């Protein structure tokens, strides 16, 4: 199962367009990213520019309205994300707990939708295993 770990830095909703992460945190972050990579769980990671450089497109009655950032109403915004492939929600949380974040940051862990589950009768059909196993041998 895949999870997105979203970094929500406090204050990023009103950060200046040229805001960058503190370089002091970089070596620790690199180490953390490497650990994710070595464990084979990392699928993607990216950092995002502040909302002041972005735009929001809202829809009313089928009509799109564009608002340039920053967005006065936004309380929490995403600053970066990882996508990881892990075996359980707990494992995703465990990885998030190990991230080198500073005091004013939050990580929200959310599962990514996967292929819809098949009906039970399909899942339980036991045919075909022998023939498949024969090829393995």
């Amino acid at each position, binding site marked *: 199962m895949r999870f997105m770990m979203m970094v929500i830095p406090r204050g990023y909703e009103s950060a200046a367009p040229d805001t960058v992460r503190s370089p002091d945190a970089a070596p620790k972050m690199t180490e953390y990213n490497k650990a994710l990579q070595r464990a084979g769980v990392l699928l993607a990671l990216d950092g995002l520019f502040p909302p002041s450089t972005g735009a929001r497109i809202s829809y009313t009655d089928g009509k799109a309205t564009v608002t340039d950032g920053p967005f006065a109403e936004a309380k929490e915004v995403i600053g970066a994300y990882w996508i990881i492939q892990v075996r359980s929600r707990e*494992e995703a949380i465990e990885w998030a707990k190990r991230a080198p974040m500073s005091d004013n940051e939050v990580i929200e862990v959310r599962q990514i939708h996967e292929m819809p589950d*098949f009906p039970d009768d399909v899942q339980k059909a036991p045919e075909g295993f022998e023939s498949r196993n024969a090829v393995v041998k």
Partner: protein
Amino acid sequence: MIEAVWKIESTRLIAAIARVTRDIGVAEELAQDALVTALELWPEEGVPENPGAWLMKAAKRRAIDTLRRGHMLEQKHEEIARELEWRQQRLADALERSMDQVIDDDILRLIFTACHPILPVEARIALTLRLIGGLTTAEIARAFLVPEKTMGQRIFRAKKTLSEAHVPFETPCGDELRRRVESVLVVVYLIFNEGYTATSGEEWARTAICDEALRLGRMLAQLLPGESEVHALLALMELQASRATARRGRNGEAVLLSDQDRSLWDLAQIQRGVTALEHARRLGGGAKHYALQAAIAACHMRARTAEETDWERIVLLYDALMQISQSPIVALNRAVAVGEAQGPAAGLDAVDAAARLAGASALAGNHLFPSVRGDLLMKLGRFTEASEEIQRAITMTKNLREQELLTERLKKIEKAALSA
């Protein structure tokens, strides 16, 4: 939560201990002991700040205790006792050092040992999932539709075999390295296929097994960055897995590549696959076994519709693959491509060549031979022969869903014959 920590830490833990004990069975036991201690203490005392380091420390204590106990038993002669004491001290020191710093080499050694050619393939698969995948015996048994007891015995025997053969806990080098990497890749790809091509078993188990193979592939790409085939296998698995959603219909039935809804293909995963394949090519391994298979998969993925598929290129890639391994299954796949690129008559000749290659082997009884032949005959308008072949295919497979698909095709042929 303890389980999650275990999944993340167990491989590093076992690898670090095995560097000292030189026996992965013993190493796993010690790591398990540490886990049991954690299961007892953490619910009461809370999860420690650094759970990985905590487990390491607990395992180290157990290891030293075990050494001491072994020492007591063998303390028959004073001389031996002194020798043992010295050895014990040395081992304890080594253990101390090894656990303070787990290096990637340990994990690599663990993988090479679990996939040692001395073991039967099934045992390598089970041991890899257990030691590197952190799966429980019950989970592995469920994924392989084998009773838990059987799987437990398989793992036990595998560890015993390694221990009795004194298989060194090391990273091979030179020509040996290539052979051993091959053995590891075979195991990873079999694990992947177990999850990917299975038409049975519980859905979650199959997905979990596929994901685990992909994770192992990514781990190996980090551990052996210079081995082109490692990247190529990862590419092949990513490209195949990117079609996972599209290859099953609403009722779980298999959907052929040409009939798949290509909008369901996972673009990010395709991109990861293509990047890994490019990496393999840059390392000079573009013409090797897994790279060619990945290239064929990539060729399919590049086509926006089935009709746009570059079959000529796929035939060339299969030709190159045939030069490496004269496998009847590769030959049969090539025949399908030839049928598309050069017409059904040429495809039919290629199927016959593939069947000759299969000879009297077990593969000769594979239903895919008459099934492919039936398709090509239908395209040639030879409907009677086509339906005979499909009927033959139906009797050759025990898989009910496969039989259903073939029966549907039989109906199509009969309909086409009527309107012809």
